[in-house]
């Protein structure tokens, strides 16, 4: 049995109420969306909040819509807007997501198992805490080992002599949202701000998000594909121990656009479940431009470009050499997944 330590519970009914509570309690508060990550972490003593704020009754944070389209009759040039409390089960099956960002549906569907996805939200996935084999353990286990830098301790068990935590971003949808260049809308009692998801994460495993204690993520916005493009594509592939419930040992997302004759004119490749920040691989667009997404030689070159700069650590279990060797394989699978579900 894993008991929770006492805390008070608040259940706001609106965003205004939620940010007022956050403004009042600050670092003493902890948000619960679907609870699928925060509850195990609370049970492991990773957080010690005085107040837990449950977001389940904030209806305005749910839903999927296209906004700002107009020129194209079907609204295909609008921005895809997803409320933070929309469940992963809704994201993975929603027609707008399937049509506009099929890779996001694939990434959402690859999170945990079906019951966790019925509970877990897209906002909770974006704000997921980093993971490490030395930290996602019971308090008893961590205490026996003398703790570590991320919580209660002074050493890192992954990097000997390390001065900062290198726990891994393990949120499947974040990899894909980085590839698509999504924007996050963040509210607080102080106001509202928008931040590119690629600037949201910082290289500190102890807290890898640029989010103040009084802030609430309200929306995830996926931009329309550039108007000049012929077509846009996105795909996701994940290395995991079992096809049900397991977190990624390698998380790979691709997104690209083609011109009117089907040649690639822009491409992005993101690798995660390595360190605290999903990594946008440099030089991919230049390598890919003018090529074809069904050209195995090109995909192999892109995979090699990603493998070169990907150095897995022992923060996640599974042989590090094997995980590195799998990078080109999963790049290939991400391209294949995208090509199975094209969009206009």
């Amino acid at each position: 049995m894993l008991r929770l330590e006492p805390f008070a519970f608040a259940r706001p009914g609106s965003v205004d109420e939620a940010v007022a509570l956050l403004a009042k309690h600050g670092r003493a508060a902890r948000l619960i969306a679907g609870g699928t990550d925060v509850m195990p972490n609370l049970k492991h003593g990773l957080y010690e909040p005085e107040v837990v704020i449950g977001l389940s009754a904030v209806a305005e944070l749910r839903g999927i819509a296209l906004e700002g389209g107009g020129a194209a009759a079907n609204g295909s040039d609008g921005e895809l807007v997803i409320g933070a409390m929309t469940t992963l089960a809704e994201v993975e099956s929603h027609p707008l997501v399937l049509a506009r960002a099929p890779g996001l549906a694939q990434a959402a569907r690859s999170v945990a198992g079906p019951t966790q996805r019925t509970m877990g939200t897209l906002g909770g996935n974006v704000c997921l805490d980093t993971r490490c084999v030395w930290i996602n353990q019971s308090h008893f286990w961590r205490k026996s080992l003398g703790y570590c830098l991320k919580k209660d301790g002074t050493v890192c068990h992954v990097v000997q002599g390390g001065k900062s935590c290198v726990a891994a971003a393990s949120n499947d949808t974040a990899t894909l949202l980085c590839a698509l260049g999504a924007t996050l809308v963040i509210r607080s009692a102080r106001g509202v701000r928008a931040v590119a998801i690629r600037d949201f994460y910082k290289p500190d495993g102890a807290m890898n998000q640029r989010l103040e204690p009084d802030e609430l993520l309200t929306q995830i916005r996926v931009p329309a594909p550039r108007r000049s493009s012929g077509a846009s594509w996105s795909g996701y592939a994940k290395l995991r121990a079992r096809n049900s419930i397991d977190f990624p040992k390698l998380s790979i997302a691709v997104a690209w656009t083609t011109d009117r004759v089907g040649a690639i004119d822009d491409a992005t490749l993101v690798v995660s479940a390595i360190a605290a920040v999903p990594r946008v691989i440099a030089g991919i667009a230049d390598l890919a431009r003018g090529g074809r997404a069904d050209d195995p030689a090109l995909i192999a070159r892109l995979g090699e470009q990603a493998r070169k700069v990907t150095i897995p650590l022992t923060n996640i279990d599974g042989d590090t050499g094997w995980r590195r060797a799998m990078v080109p394989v999963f790049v290939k699978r991400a391209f294949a997944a995208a090509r199975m579900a094209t969009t206009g």
Partner: protein
Amino acid sequence: MTAVTHLLRLDVNGSTVDVAAPAHWTLLEVLRYRLALTGSKQGCDKGDCGACTVLFDGKARLACITLAADAVGHRVTTIEGLVTPAGLDVLQRTFDEAGALQCGFCQPGMIVAARACLDRKPDATRAEIKEALASNLCRCTGYTKIFEAVEQAVRAGKAAHVGGPASLLPSGDATPAPASGAAR
């Protein structure tokens, strides 16, 4: 910090119950240690195994990682609630007939998750059944007989609601996807 106790009004297996419980108690703790509904099992107690699966407005949910206070306003159905005066749920019968258990610890969660699956899709295929039960671990059976038991329920009269309580029928708020335009 000292524990804060809440008076919670819960809807469990079709009855309204008032229960006093600490704010940091999970729904599973309230079910087992306040309401004596011990059918929902406490396995991993951290969201990994599915032994604690209950229905929340007809959808599968892990009670060990749900705060009891967050269950207020939702219809909670446990394995006990699948039994009605009319008898056992068809899944309870087919799990028995198929011998879909060894130690039986996973079984309440399996049956509840299977019930959510068949309420959504009474003619679920083997592939859909496997996918719907992917959050439920069984350390004994190797799963084959569990899948067979659910298939047997599909065959046994299109499964839906045979013996299931009226509270399992979808209500207005059980519509799957949110209406587009709801995000602001």
